[in-house]
């Protein structure tokens, strides 16, 4: 009898273990799965995105008392793991969560991680909304359940070229340095196409490997040609290296424009006053005139974040938070937690919130006309919006002072 009870119990336990967990909607809790680079090379920005996710969950649970979907109130929960900036580890983590029955995924940071992980969620019929992968490959391979807050990389440069053509003296030549990875390369290709379309000559188009310890030779080429604008579609650490070596080798250009890096406190600490005048992109500004149901205005989001989290606020936090806001808004509109209904609602979503006007293209990336980057320039230590003109808080400083003058 005892043996029979044991066998029955074991069999029951095995069956329970084999059935996928109903993570979404179970016990009135909506659980978001995913992985984030909490350690490794992309950890600095990964932590920023993670705190954005946490901020949205905290706000919706604690300030809004949860969210009502289809007449039922739900709390939100995160089931995020550290992928250590490693695509191989991330795919294992995501596959496990898919097997466990998670339906709704948030993205990691970096196209090299988002690309293989979104392929898994798509194949399993799950949804991913992410603010960490902009590579064109994510959005041009026919996926229907992957949504990106940012426009695809090749469409991220339109507003920049508009600014260049409006500068006085007008920008005639540009050199581009890019990291040879799935995101930066597409961004650089988009930049080159947009620049050439606008009649701006691209003097140099230089690819860097992912790990760089020295850019002296690249800067020698830049000094030989001296473009009006040096565009770097590189990641944080490489951007710091380039900027520091430009200062220390006295390589001056009228405008240094780095798409990633200058937003971070590490960049400011590494460059000090030399960070002034450097232009970068941001997909959100706390000074932007947007507001909506969640958090209120952009400034309200900034205030809530600072009151509850310790990291320096960058646009990555807002981008992370709006992923969850988009999910919840779509589920509310669908009136259901059914995966297909939420997917359809996400696909059709069109609403304004603290982040801006959220709308996705047919391919799932952010609509470039609404969610394209703002251009930011550090001026006297403050990050000022210099383009587009509608939301600008300062005039661009161009040509920028020489490094010696910035010391």
């Amino acid at each position, binding site marked *: 009898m005892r043996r029979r009870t044991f066998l029955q119990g074991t069999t029951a336990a095995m069956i329970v273990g084999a059935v996928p967990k109903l993570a979404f909607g179970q016990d009135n809790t909506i659980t978001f799965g995913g992985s984030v680079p*909490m*350690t*490794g*090379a992309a*950890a*600095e920005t*990964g*932590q920023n995105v993670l705190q954005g996710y946490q901020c949205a969950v905290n706000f919706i649970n604690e300030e809004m008392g949860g969210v009502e979907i289809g007449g039922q109130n739900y709390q939100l929960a995160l089931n995020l793991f550290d992928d250590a*900036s490693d695509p191989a580890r991330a795919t294992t983590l995501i596959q496990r969560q898919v097997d466990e029955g998670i339906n709704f995924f948030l993205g990691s940071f970096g196209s090299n991680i988002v690309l293989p992980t979104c392929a898994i969620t798509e194949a399993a019929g799950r949804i991913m909304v992410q603010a960490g992968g902009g590579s064109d490959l994510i959005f041009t391979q026919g996926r229907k359940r992957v949504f990106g807050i940012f426009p695809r990389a090749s469409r991220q440069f339109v507003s920049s070229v508009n600014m260049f053509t409006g500068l006085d003296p007008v920008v005639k030549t540009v050199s581009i340095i890019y990291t*040879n990875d799935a995101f930066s390369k597409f961004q650089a290709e988009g930049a080159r196409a947009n620049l050439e379309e606008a009649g701006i000559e691209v003097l140099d188009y*230089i*690819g*860097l*490997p992912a*790990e*760089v*310890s*020295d*850019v*002296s*030779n*690249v800067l*020698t*080429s830049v*000094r*030989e040609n001296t473009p009006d604008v040096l565009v770097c579609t590189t990641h*944080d*650490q490489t951007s*710091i*290296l380039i900027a*520091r*070596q430009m*200062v*220390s*080798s*006295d390589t001056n250009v009228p405008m240094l424009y780095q798409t990633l890096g200058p937003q*971070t*406190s*590490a*960049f400011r*600490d*590494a460059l*000090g006053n*030399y960070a002034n005048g450097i232009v970068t992109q941001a997909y959100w500004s706390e000074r932007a005139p947007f507001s909506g149901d969640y958090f209120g205005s952009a400034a309200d989001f900034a205030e809530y974040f600072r009151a509850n989290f310790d990291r320096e606020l960058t646009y990555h936090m807002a981008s992370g938070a709006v992923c969850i806001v988009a999910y919840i808004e779509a589920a509310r509109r669908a009136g259901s937690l059914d995966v297909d209904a939420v997917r359809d609602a996400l696909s059709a979503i069109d609403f304004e919130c603290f982040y801006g006007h959220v709308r996705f293209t047919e391919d799932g990336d952010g609509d470039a006309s609404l969610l394209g980057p703002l251009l930011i320039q550090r001026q006297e230590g403050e990050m000022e919006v210099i383009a587009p003109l509608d939301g600008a808080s300062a005039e661009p400083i161009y040509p920028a002072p020489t*490094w010696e003058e910035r*010391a």
Partner: protein
Amino acid sequence: MTLFLQTVLNGLVLGGIYSLAAVGFSLVFGVLGIVNLTHGIFVVAGAYGALLFFGQIGIDPLVAIIPIGLVLFAVGYVYQRTIIQWAVSRASLVASLVVTFGVAMMARNGLQLVFGPDVHTITPAYSFMSLTLGPLRMDVVRLVALGASLVLLVVLALVLARTHFGRAIRATAQQPLAAELSGLNVRNLHGLTFGLGAAMAGASGAIIGIVQPFTAASEVAWTLNAFIVVVLGGIGSPAGALVGGLLLGMINAFTAQYIGPSLTQAAMFLVLVLMLLVRPSGLLGNAFGESR
């Protein structure tokens, strides 16, 4: 011609840093026969140490080399006498590969836990100065790094060649049994050699910290670079590390300038494979190999 000379200069400066970062790895490999995959951790720990000294007390990283070297010497000694020696004595030299790999992973995460995931840089007053020599231009910080690297390599070479300690290390490397029969404490000398390697790695880390941004994850690249330098230059001697480092710097600079920066790593690994095929002991050979 100017471009060529500038490329040579860039390659030399980069190579000097590679040399210093690799010499500790080379020494440990040559004397103990251990491929120390924790090497990059010592380099990055040196950089974090310099960051602490500079940020908290305002001590210049070049001065901080001394206390950092002492601390890492002690850490390296204890690490070898305990974990590595246990692993090697209970299994084989191959076990040290797995053990150092595991320790490196744990240490990397430990450093990240303590210092955070953010990118760090050390910015002394001379960080942003440059020197101009005719049409050639070089940032002071890299020249300082090259100078400090050369000084430390020469000091290490003198220690190995002229002191009793150095002779004991060489004797241990060449004939461990004979060295032991002559009254040398080989186990202790292995620990001291490992400590010396860790100290040199830490010193290089302090210098690297002022040259480029770093995170805990940077350690992987520095272990890999050290391995390539040793394969190119030869095992066990400062001269081998210097030759290997300078060669690696030149390969890096010339590939970046004349072929394309995105192919620098491909070029490095191509040369690595060719060297392993043609001259597996490196250009200067194994400094201790002939007597074995």
